[in-house]
């Protein structure tokens, strides 16, 4: 090999070396100068992690400040994932201590709801002795800590469960709606009731930690932190004592009804469910709202089981989760007569002095057959009655005539009853700040036509006829209202014509008990209510309670009417295929109404004998005398 050849070969080596080094320099220049910015941003993303921790949720208080929902602090065992990873010995010891399997423990540790950078709670409500053991043997349990966690607690168990609602883990739809307001997967959110309505107030603001995290997920430092802002307390208009009184009375009344026999079909009353609403007619405040059957919201704390949740929505259990006060739709029966009466007086169809001979039944003009005859309950005849008397004894015939005449007479007053009922808020949502409220229905030719088109099998008749108006006049037919609507309409009648939006919360309080926000009364509208029309009707309702022949007289026997005067209307609504719904709506005191009570009991019989005694017990409590057990009485309508 010649010398030149050797030089040439070395030169080739040199060229290769120079090209390789040039490539390295070029790449360095590209990465560190040209492309540096984008990759540097990734480096920052690498090291920083955002962690949010929920703030303690606000409490729910009754109108006197007594807690209905509070936070119970319990000791939870938490585990730092990175520390126990692959440490089977620790996992085994911890599982044994908690009395669960290692597999179950690992499943809890891997719960994706929790940030990987914070300790994961694996057991809550751990007994004190085990906590003490853990603390004494900390060396055996690296990565295992004991932390205080707050969870929802209900000092009065199931009391007012439907109003309070419950909290649960946020679902996808809720998250999609609220992602911009700082909610994250795994967060708790109010699912129903007040918890849902006042979510924003109750929730507070979660803490926000910016953590520096290494590649293994170890937290190296806290770069910044924003402390949590605890949620505000919500003070309700509900009165704990009245609520308890209402729930007890309703449950007792239903229980007592189930022991009675329905004379129509000789079977016991089913009396599976019911509802009570107590309101203050002066501002629309709800003092009590009961729905039976009920449930214990404690079951929802730290996750409800699928089976239990299903059973709470099961028809066989009569839908315990349903708040019947706003979701139950019932034919109002004779409690509706107040609005028929008002329509008749205010439209000039009758005067308070107009009388009518009640012979026990009413026959539609120019109509033949049994379907044309409408009877009083038990086909009783009350003789010559005026409006007040008709309300006292609950003469259906009197109101049949009014209903028939309005429609048959034609002209602008054809739908006077419907218009009056709607002015009082029946057939529309009251607007109470609770979700899933039902609308009810005040039927008219339009609603009939729609029903017929929708379900021709169930509603073969598409035309509105006089008979329909006759049914409406006593709150039957397709007329349905919610217990809250009924109470609110009576409240508007009681206070002289102001229809309020019922209110359930009075104010929002901060941690020191100072009002952050007052929730005022909201007037929906002023209903035209002529005092000259109101007086004879009120007189009739008063008679129903006071007069020995009144439909509720039996129920109110021995009631301290001198302490608290009561006016009320019984209702017994027929429901096809079921036993009668018992209703009672009351106003007290008559002179200066402060309470309106509406009681609705499914398949419990006559309003006077089943619902009025329940209302009586509640009113007795409100009057300040110790209420005894609910005493059902005989009687009709």
């Amino acid at each position, binding site marked *: *090999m010649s010398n030149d050849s050797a*030089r040439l070969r*070395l030169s080739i080596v040199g060229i290769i*070396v120079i090209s390789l080094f040039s490539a390295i320099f070029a790449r360095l220049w590209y990465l560190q100068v040209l492309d*540096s910015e984008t990759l540097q941003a990734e480096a920052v993303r690498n090291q920083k992690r955002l962690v949010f921790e929920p703030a303690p949720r606000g409490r729910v208080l009754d109108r006197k400040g007594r807690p209905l929902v509070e936070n119970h602090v319990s000791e939870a065992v938490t585990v730092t994932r990175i520390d126990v990873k692959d440490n089977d010995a620790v996992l085994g010891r911890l599982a044994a201590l908690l009395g669960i399997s290692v597999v179950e423990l690992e499943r809890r540790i891997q719960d994706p709801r929790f940030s990987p950078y914070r300790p994961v709670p694996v057991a809550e409500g751990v007994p004190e002795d085990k906590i003490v053991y853990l603390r004494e043997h900390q060396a055996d349990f690296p990565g295992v800590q004991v932390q205080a966690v707050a969870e929802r607690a209900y000092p009065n168990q199931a009391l007012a469960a439907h109003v309070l609602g419950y909290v649960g883990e946020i679902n996808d739809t809720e998250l999609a709606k609220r992602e911009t307001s700082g909610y994250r997967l795994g967060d708790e959110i109010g699912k129903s009731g007040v918890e849902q309505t006042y979510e924003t107030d109750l929730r507070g603001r979660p803490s926000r930690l910016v953590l520096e995290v290494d590649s293994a997920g170890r937290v190296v430092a806290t770069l910044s932190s924003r402390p949590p802002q605890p949620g505000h307390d919500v003070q309700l208009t509900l009165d704990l004592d009245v609520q308890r009184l209402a729930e007890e009375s309703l449950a007792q009344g239903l229980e007592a009804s189930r022991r009675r026999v329905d004379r129509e079909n000789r079977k016991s009353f089913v009396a599976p469910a019911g509802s009570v609403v107590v309101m203050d007619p002066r501002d629309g405040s709800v003092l009590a709202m009961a729905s039976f059957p009920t449930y214990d919201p404690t079951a929802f704390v730290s996750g409800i089981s699928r089976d239990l949740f299903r059973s709470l929505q099961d028809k066989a259990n009569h839908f315990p989760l349903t708040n019947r006060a706003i979701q139950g739709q019932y034919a109002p029966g004779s409690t509706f007569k107040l609005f028929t009466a008002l329509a008749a007086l205010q439209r000039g169809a009758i005067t308070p002095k107009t009388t009518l001979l009640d012979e026990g039944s009413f026959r539609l003009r120019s109509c033949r057959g049994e379907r044309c005859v409408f009877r009083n309950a038990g086909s009783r005849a009350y003789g010559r009655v005026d409006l007040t008397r008709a309300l006292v004894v609950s003469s259906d015939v009197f109101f049949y005539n009014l209903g028939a005449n309005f429609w048959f007479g034609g002209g602008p007053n054809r739908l006077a009853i419907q218009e009056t009922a709607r002015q009082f808020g029946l057939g529309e949502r009251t607007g109470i700040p609770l979700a899933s409220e039902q609308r009810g229905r005040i039927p008219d030719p339009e609603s009939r036509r729609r029903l017929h088109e929708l379900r021709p099998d169930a509603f073969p008749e598409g035309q509105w006829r006089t008979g329909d108006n006759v049914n409406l006049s006593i709150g039957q037919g397709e007329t349905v209202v919610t217990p809250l609507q009924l109470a609110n309409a009576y409240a508007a009648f009681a206070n002289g014509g102001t229809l309020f939006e019922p209110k359930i919360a009075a104010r929002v309080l901060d941690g020191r008990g100072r009002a952050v926000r007052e929730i005022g009364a909201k007037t929906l509208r002023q209903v035209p209510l002529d005092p000259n029309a109101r007086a004879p009707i009120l007189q009739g309702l008063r008679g129903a309670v006071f007069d020995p022949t009144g439909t509720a007289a039996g129920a109110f026997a021995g009631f301290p009417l001198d302490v608290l005067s009561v006016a009320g209307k019984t209702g017994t609504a027929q429901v096809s295929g079921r036993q009668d719904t018992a209703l009672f709506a009351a106003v007290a005191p008559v002179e200066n109404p402060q309470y309106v009570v509406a009681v609705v009991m499914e398949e419990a019989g006559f309003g006077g004998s089943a619902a009025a005694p329940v209302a009586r017990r509640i009113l007795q409590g409100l009057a300040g005398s110790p209420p005894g057990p609910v005493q059902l009485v005989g009687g009709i309508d």
Partner: protein
Amino acid sequence: MTATTTALPPRRESLSRRSSAAPWRHVDITLVAAVLAVAGLGVLMVYSATQRRIDGDPHFFLRRQAIFALLGIGVMVVVASIDYRVFRDFAPQIYVGILVLLLLVLSPLGSNRRGAQAWFQIGGFQFQPSELAKVALIVCIAAYGSVHRGDLNARRVLTVLALAAGPMVLINAQPDLGTVLVFLAILLGTLLVAGARPRHMAALGLVGLVAVIAVFQLGLLKEYQKDRLGAFLEPSDNSLSSTYNLNQSKIAIANGGLTGKGLFEGTQTKLAYVPEQHTDFIFTVVGEELGLLGAGLLMVAFAVVVWRIWRAAALAKDLCGTIVCVGVLSMFVFQIFENVGMTMGIMPITGIPLPFMSYGGSATIACFAAIGLVLNVHMRRFS
């Protein structure tokens, strides 16, 4: 290439210095200085990459790498002081010796770490014979090549290939594909200067290329090797674990920018986002903490080392010296390019250490030994 040609010093001038007897008077101070600078930086970078390890002594790796460097310097001096022609004469013994070591390491005497049967455990230290084998093979090829005075016909080229095949097969059995690739680089470089014919070199290159494709296509690669190659070819496919490594590596280097985050201040480094950072990915520490300035200076230092080795090859008294120097040069250049290239995503990921920088005793000492050989050739260019 005129620049390179003029870099060769004129023969006449060297005549006057030939009388100087002691070879140590001709030692290449520039090369020694550059190597020591790189090795010093290496110790510092290993410390930066390991000081935050939460388990144990933060100085563990620092202390050991410093010891390795000092041992390496000692080995370098010893290797330089024995005339390289002595090594040449003992080439057959050296060759057999290294084969025996590579066989033994595969036996139960050797130990397995991270899936490779590549170490002898000696007290608290591990000795990796494949690192030594690289230097040994260079000496053996040089010895064989110098015998044939730059005339390698097909049979002789095949003999060299067969010589290299022994250790390569054994190392591949560990398995350590990275080191096998270094052997290939050494082979190409030494064969070129030992006088292999252009058509043989071309054939060799072609066979190599076909072999690489075949290995990949016929599924001869282990799963992790495919994974690494996939990460190199498809850097956006995040399903591969190597992609994560590569991305973190690139992020770390880019995070340094022009001037770096400052010594011990790199967040990717502090938070251990780059895997194997004190060994194969040591360059990312330089890139992140010292920036383009530091990484550039390190590459300049490497360039100086390579330049001085190339110069020693050109100045060598005989072909044996030239081949030794080019062998060492090939080894270093390939390792530097492959290692630095892989951290920046221009080469596939293989477990090849960065000379004088990556943590590891055998590799560091072998590198110093290789430099010792070059110094040896350079200072005996007159004798």
